[in-house]
């Protein structure tokens, strides 16, 4: 067992208590409205103690953590019921992207805020006309007097209201189509040209939002890569999103399965042969996922585990949501004290897992085309709908 893990355990025991006790087991995806302010303070505490960016280069405060350490620490955090991390988009998506593609200035400017747990990021990819077909973004960016001027709209932007910055994929070459002519910009949210409007989700809360840009601005140097590199950078970030960024989240899956098991034992569902098999299968697939991580982290080439991890975990989680509801039985319908219970949230929110970060259908396309070498989907244009 690593010493980092021991140190982290001690730290959690010493700190995740008192005024922070209420945060335990809270604030996971789908429960984002739980104590947002306190969770930000908690994030800064994590940062201050050096628990963010452990695998970054030492000049940015990394502590030489290995991939295996990262898994262990996430496991430890989940076992303590560590609260959902407000900073995960910055730490697990943007930071690795900046480390790979950003300039020294960008790294100096943005990494410390992430590392300290004081600056929060959101992801401005999707638009009304660009979901699965992300390359169809219409938001425009133009360079004027040493500044980028941005006009357009993003949608489904998670945590925009809680964030300080957004990374935006926009079109910088007028007349360009598809994945050409795009830029990847780092934009401050608190400015006159940005308007954020929450959207209520089927799970009750409003994690995601519309974000409108009307002559919003960022500095000329806030472009990652060059004009035309936007797609490449955006895809690199997505690879982190579909790959290891979800380790922390997946470690909490065990807690959720344990909660389902506990309830099944309490209410007698554990005697139902079909429920028993589904629980055993959920456990089986959880073990499979865990080993998939090891394969991903231990191979230098792409392995099958990389291609399949997103669809596998998201489908697993959605099935767990259904299992949770089935274990609850009819009582799953009842709302107590005006709030969904944890298992109700699990049931509802897990429907999103197979949509964001590339839907299951898109994952299958990717597997078929990249892992199996099957022909690519024809690109549209010709198809006309009747009506």
């Amino acid at each position: 067992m690593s010493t980092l893990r021991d140190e982290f355990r001690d730290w959690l025991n010493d700190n995740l208590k008192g005024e922070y006790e209420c945060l335990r087991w809270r604030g996971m995806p789908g429960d984002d409205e739980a104590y947002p302010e306190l969770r930000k303070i908690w994030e800064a505490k994590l940062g201050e103690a050096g628990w963010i960016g452990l695998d970054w280069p030492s000049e940015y405060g990394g502590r030489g953590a290995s991939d295996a350490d990262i898994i262990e620490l996430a496991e430890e955090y989940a076992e303590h019921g560590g609260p959902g991390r407000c900073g995960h988009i910055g730490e697990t998506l943007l930071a690795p992207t900046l480390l790979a593609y950003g300039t020294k200035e960008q790294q100096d400017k943005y990494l410390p805020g992430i590392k300290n747990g004081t600056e929060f990021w959101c992801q401005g990819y999707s638009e009304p006309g660009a979901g699965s077909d992300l390359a169809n973004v219409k938001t425009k960016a133009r360079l004027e007097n040493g500044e980028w001027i941005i006009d357009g709209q993003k949608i489904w932007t998670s945590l925009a209201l809680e964030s300080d910055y957004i990374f935006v994929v926009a079109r910088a070459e007028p007349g360009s189509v598809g994945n050409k002519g795009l830029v990847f910009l780092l934009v401050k949210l608190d400015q006159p040209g940005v308007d954020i409007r929450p959207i209520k989700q089927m799970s009750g809360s409003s994690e995601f939002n519309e974000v409108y840009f009307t002559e919003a601005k960022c500095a000329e140097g806030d472009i990652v890569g060059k004009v035309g590199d936007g797609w490449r950078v955006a895809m690199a970030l997505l690879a982190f999103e579909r790959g290891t960024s979800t380790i922390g989240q997946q470690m909490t899956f065990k807690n959720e399965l344990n909660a389902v098991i506990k309830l099944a034992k309490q209410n007698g569902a554990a005697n139902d042969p079909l429920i028993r098999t589904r629980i055993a299968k959920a456990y089986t697939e959880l073990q499979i996922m865990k080993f998939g991580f090891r394969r991903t982290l231990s191979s230098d080439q792409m392995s099958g585990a990389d291609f399949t991890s997103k669809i596998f975990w998201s489908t697993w989680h959605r099935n767990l949501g259904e299992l949770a509801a089935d274990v609850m039985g009819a009582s799953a319908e009842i709302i107590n004290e005006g709030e969904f219970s944890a298992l109700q949230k699990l049931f509802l929110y897990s429907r999103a897992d197979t949509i964001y970060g590339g839907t299951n259908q898109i994952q299958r396309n990717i597997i078929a085309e990249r892992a199996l070498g099957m022909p690519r989907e024809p690109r549209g244009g010709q198809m006309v709908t009747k009506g």
Partner: protein
Amino acid sequence: MSFPFSDDHDMIREAVRGVLQDAYDGGKGPEHIYKSGAGYDAELWTSFAQDLGMAGIAIDEAYGGAALGDLGRVVIMEELGASLASIPFSPCSTIASDMIAGVGSDEAKEEWLPKIAAGEAIFAYTDGHHALTVEGGKLSGRVNMVLYGAQADVLLMSFRDGDKFKLIGIPQGVKGYGAETVETMDPTRSFSNITLQDVMMKDVMHLGEGTPEQFDAIVKTSFIGLAAECVGGAQKALDMTLEYLGQRVQFGRPIASFQAIKHRAADMYIAIEAARNAVYAAAMAEGDDKVEAALIAKAYASDAFFDVAGHAIQLHGGIGFTWEYPLHYFFKRARANRAVFGQSAREYERLATILLGEAA
């Protein structure tokens, strides 16, 4: 080389694949083996075990083996699954050699492990503790569906004696021993029913003893090999399917370009990769974790193989339903693997009992 395998494993995979695919090419192998009804290819076994030296892959170096453990066996079983070669590696070099290594006496190990490693003796194994009776120094009983039972030089059996289990070995051909080959849907492998009628106990070899738990753990961990065979078979069925999908043209385009087909192929791949995770995890697990990991691997991989083989037939259309085209052998092997060694429902119930306790 890719995790969890080493360069040694990769070399073995290449060598084994060369020999097996030459001889068998994924079920297209010598029809005469299948038609003979024997389900056993003596010639191939000799070259595989003796010339290639693969029978002792997991046996200790002290006994002439290669000491490459479960991961080494996984490599070989994947290739055996991909070729459906009719050789008794599975009983002889997985469960039987593990039984001897695990609960055998020193003499038994010294006598038999080197012979297995050198390809000089074929062993089969079956649970005998419900089937055997001893009366007046004579052993009688009947066990069904013993994998390569008719070909085994020695049939190993577990045998209950008070609160201990004994490991006994019955040499082929002793008086009272009868082996009758069973014709099964899957003709690529040999099963036999074994009858023992008043076999003199002095003709029976006493090879070792252990607790029921020890025997049980060896049986369960031997499932890792079976699960690896499922992964290899499923991968081959997917490979054959992908090749066909790329060639077959309908509606003016290769059928591989239809999304309904791509998504089904992707699902096959997802199932195989998950099964792979389960099998490799089990091969690498240690101590108490290994038994649970082996149960998981067997349950998951045997179901995945069956699903994948079924999808493969569907995606081939009529040709997939044709005897001449070897896909059906994989389908049949997949079904046999889930049926003969216990259905996944049984493993899932075992896991459920660990997680939830006994059902009321």
